[in-house]
């Protein structure tokens, strides 16, 4: 298949089908509606499951049941809907089940707005459900990268027996861009899930139980330590990022998703003007790509975090920086998508301040 011009949400839905998604459970919410709409047309023809649930809460619990029965299950939503799903996400992580969650982020808090935003950073990376758990969290920058990650995410979820979340914002969901589904890595065929509670208790090894309850504190602690081992493995193996013109940079942006697209143009313009800027682009936001910061040369003067939110990722940048470089922040929020010029102006003001001090 050659490149096809597709709308972001539809490309994501198609990527999920190609990734071997057996079942989708979702609830309508803007700006992700084209995902369930596309799947409602195409899952049935492939003999797969599509259910429009009565609520976000029910949708994630249907995912919980389907994943427990061994299916590759998907849900999609947008920020306030993801907030409602946190209960189920915590249970799925606690029960060590694989699933894929797509979050097409919009502004908040509360009902917020429906324009693109990255204000779910904390919700996506720090959880929101109860307990010690993490999601493997991706924040792709363009549609080709998004479909690649969605296809791969079903394998990653199965491998870690953990939910994978893909956080894009409404800009990626609603824009059109050429994508090549075959250029994406081929998803592995799902392996037999010997642990699944799928109604085959005469299997060798006996009946299977899916649960997240451990009333004995020592037993629950052991369970948590077992989960932590997976998260440590993710931290070691899954930190993904792109280093853009950082080798000789004085100022290094840190930006992901749509904000990275915008910052990329700012890097180009500033470079043309002789100002040495570069960028760390996190592709995973959990685990946060701390390794990228170790690759920076000591000659870097300032890290400038750029977000379509008000400094949520900046806290992780601060921790990863660990006192090495000066830090600065620029962000817009509430559904406002900044222009590259705003970033350029901010950099120039930074340089003026430095010059005058």
């Amino acid at each position, binding site marked *: 298949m050659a490149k096809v011009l597709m709308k972001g949400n539809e490309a994501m839905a198609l990527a999920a089908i190609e990734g071997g998604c057996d079942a989708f*459970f979702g609830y309508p919410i803007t700006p992700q509606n084209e995902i369930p709409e596309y799947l409602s047309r195409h899952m049935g023809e492939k003999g797969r*499951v599509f259910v429009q649930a*009565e609520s976000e809460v029910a949708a994630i619990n249907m995912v919980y*049941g389907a994943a*427990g029965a061994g299916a590759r*299950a998907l849900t999609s939503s947008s920020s306030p809907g993801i907030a409602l799903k946190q209960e189920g996400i915590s249970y799925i992580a606690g029960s060590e089940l694989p699933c894929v969650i797509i979050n097409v982020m919009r502004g908040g808090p509360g009902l917020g707005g429906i324009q693109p935003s990255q204000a779910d950073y904390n919700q996506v990376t720090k959880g929101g459900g109860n307990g010690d758990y993490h999601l493997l969290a991706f924040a792709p920058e363009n549609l080709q990268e998004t479909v690649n990650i969605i296809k791969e995410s079903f394998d990653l979820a199965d491998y870690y027996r953990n939910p994978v979340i893909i956080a894009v914002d409404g800009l990626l969901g609603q824009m059109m861009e050429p994508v090549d589904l075959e250029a994406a890595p081929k998803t592995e065929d799902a392996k037999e899930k010997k642990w699944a509670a*799928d109604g085959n*208790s005469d299997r060798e090894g006996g009946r299977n*139980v899916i649960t997240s*309850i451990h009333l004995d504190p020592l037993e629950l602690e052991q369970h948590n330590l077992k989960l932590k081992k997976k998260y440590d493995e993710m931290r070691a193996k899954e930190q993904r990022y792109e280093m853009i013109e950082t080798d000789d940079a004085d100022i290094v942006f840190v930006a992901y998703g749509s904000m990275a697209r915008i910052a990329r143009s700012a890097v180009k313009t500033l470079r043309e003007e002789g100002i040495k800027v570069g960028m760390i682009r996190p592709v995973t936001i959990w685990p946060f790509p701390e390794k990228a910061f170790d690759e920076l040369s000591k000659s870097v003067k300032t890290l400038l975090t750029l977000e379509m939110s008000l400094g949520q990722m900046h806290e992780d940048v601060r921790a990863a920086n660990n006192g090495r470089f000066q830090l600065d922040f620029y962000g817009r929020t509430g559904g406002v998508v900044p222009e590259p010029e705003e970033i350029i102006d901010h950099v120039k003001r930074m340089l003026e301040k430095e010059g005058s001090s």
Partner: protein
Amino acid sequence: MNTKTVYEPTKGLTEREFHYCPGCTHGIIHKLVAEVLVEKGLLEKSVAVASVGCSVFSYEYFNCDAHQAPHGRAPAVATGIKRVRPDSAVFTYQGDGDLASIGTAEIVHAAHRGENITVIFVNNAIYGMTGGQMAPTTLIGQKTTTSPFGRDKTLTGEPLRISEMLATIPGAAYLERVSVHDPKHIRKAKKSIEKAFDVQMKKQGFSMIEFISTCPVNWGMNPMESIEWAKENMIPYYPLKVFKDKTKGDNDE
């Protein structure tokens, strides 16, 4: 010496000892469900969905695959299982706090979609596990730890009749309320469970059996008194009957 087995524990239950309180009817209901699964040859293909409440550990007892669900969400979890494994036998086991309060949306819409699942609904008019708080099913005047002066309808409404409510939903194929307060009713209840699983396996739609149950500890009674109380107070408000039977051509009112 000639010996003849006249009774043995059902293979539908594990050997794990029940944690339920003396006089609670969970034990009877577990046994009936388990016997039906064995007798109908469904045990190996069953997935039990446990809820939150006293029956949170029911997955320890039902000798089949099982999935523990968040509070009230068992019908949604069961939907996910049944949709991807349509030939399995999927049932939820839920109390009245779980099903009639926090899980009303999930039970209504599982019925609404006509999900081919069976719901075992155990109604004892109180939250048992958490220590005897008022439920939507608590009777008027009934004292609980959160209605210490008796349930007052002006403040808390009147007890919710779930089977009657679900009977108005087109997707509900079989709905019956039964009791297990004496052997005659226990035998009848087993027949009702059989019927519900038949409806499920014939893919005729949503089935639910509501059980009038007891909670001697939180009702502040001994087991015998609680059986009497259920008979005298609950059954008049929650009548025992078939509310919907699509297999007999019951249509929607």
